[in-house]
């Protein structure tokens, strides 16, 4: 059986995440919205990356450019200060993916 479209996107995203985290090891990556639920087909892939500094945000956006040019990824980049201000992770029940195996990401 061929891979489902959301799995293709998630697999590519995880590969990119691992590569980019080598450059920004303190960044934390989360999925939220439809891909983090059982709703199918997926709409956008909502991705939150929280990093220490604005410079890290800029690096991550640049490094994600290739995958964001191929899949409908809605990229939300926040510094830790911004995330703490709006409490986005808790409010959106975002699921951390930087420490989870791929099989847990896509249900």
């Amino acid at each position, binding site marked *: 059986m061929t891979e489902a479209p959301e799995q293709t996107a998630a697999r590519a995203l995880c590969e990119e995440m691992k590569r980019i985290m080598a450059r920004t090891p303190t960044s934390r990556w989360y999925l939220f919205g439809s891909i983090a639920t059982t709703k199918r087909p997926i*709409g956008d892939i909502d991705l939150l990356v929280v990093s220490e500094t604005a410079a890290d945000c800029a690096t991550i956006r640049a490094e994600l450019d290739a995958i964001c040019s191929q899949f409908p990824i809605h990229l939300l980049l926040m510094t830790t200060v911004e995330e703490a201000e709006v409490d986005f992770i808790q409010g959106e029940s975002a699921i951390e993916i930087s420490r989870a195996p791929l099989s847990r990401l896509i249900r």
Partner: protein
Amino acid sequence: MAKYTAAETTEWVADNLRKAGKVSKVEVISDQVLRVARSNYDPFVAGIVSLKCVGEDDVRPLVTPQLGIEIIANVPKESYWTGGAIRLAQDNNIATGSYGDLLRVIDVEDVRTFQPKETEFVERGLRQHDRILSFDRVHDRLYRVSRKGLPDLTVAMLNEYELTADHLRTARDRYGQFSVAVITDPNGRATSSAEEVAETLGVEILKWAPFFGRLNKK
């Protein structure tokens, strides 16, 4: 990472659409064209592009009447359409939108008339404001607004729930100069860092209602 071809992207979109309710069949007609049969309405034909910036040259091959395309969808969310590309599609009675909009038009009888809700909301608001003489859609989210007795305003309409510093910097990279950033999400707000970045960029961040008041001031 490996770059998908146009055909692979179109196949990816087709696979997703096949999972959608009310879709009975999805045919890949060519590398950039899909035909979607629906249980509730007549089939529609979609053109698929996958670009960071959709310009007129990208749209031109898809507006050929023989293809019968009713909507052109750009897959990447982190992207934008130039005003010229949108006008070229409109002039050919073709709707434009995102991958997510393709899922939305399954429930739209006349796909050619589809407009994203946010665009409808913004443009209806601008049309109804007494101070506005006319407006020009420079790019998808960038409007130049001509006002009675007041200088033009260049406005970025940002539909973000949480407007971050990165959103503002990205908007400036994409669209160039603008003096006002409007948060069009009714529940949206800007982070303190976004406000700080706005100050350095010389941009005012306003929610929708305050923006309407701002239109009456120099």
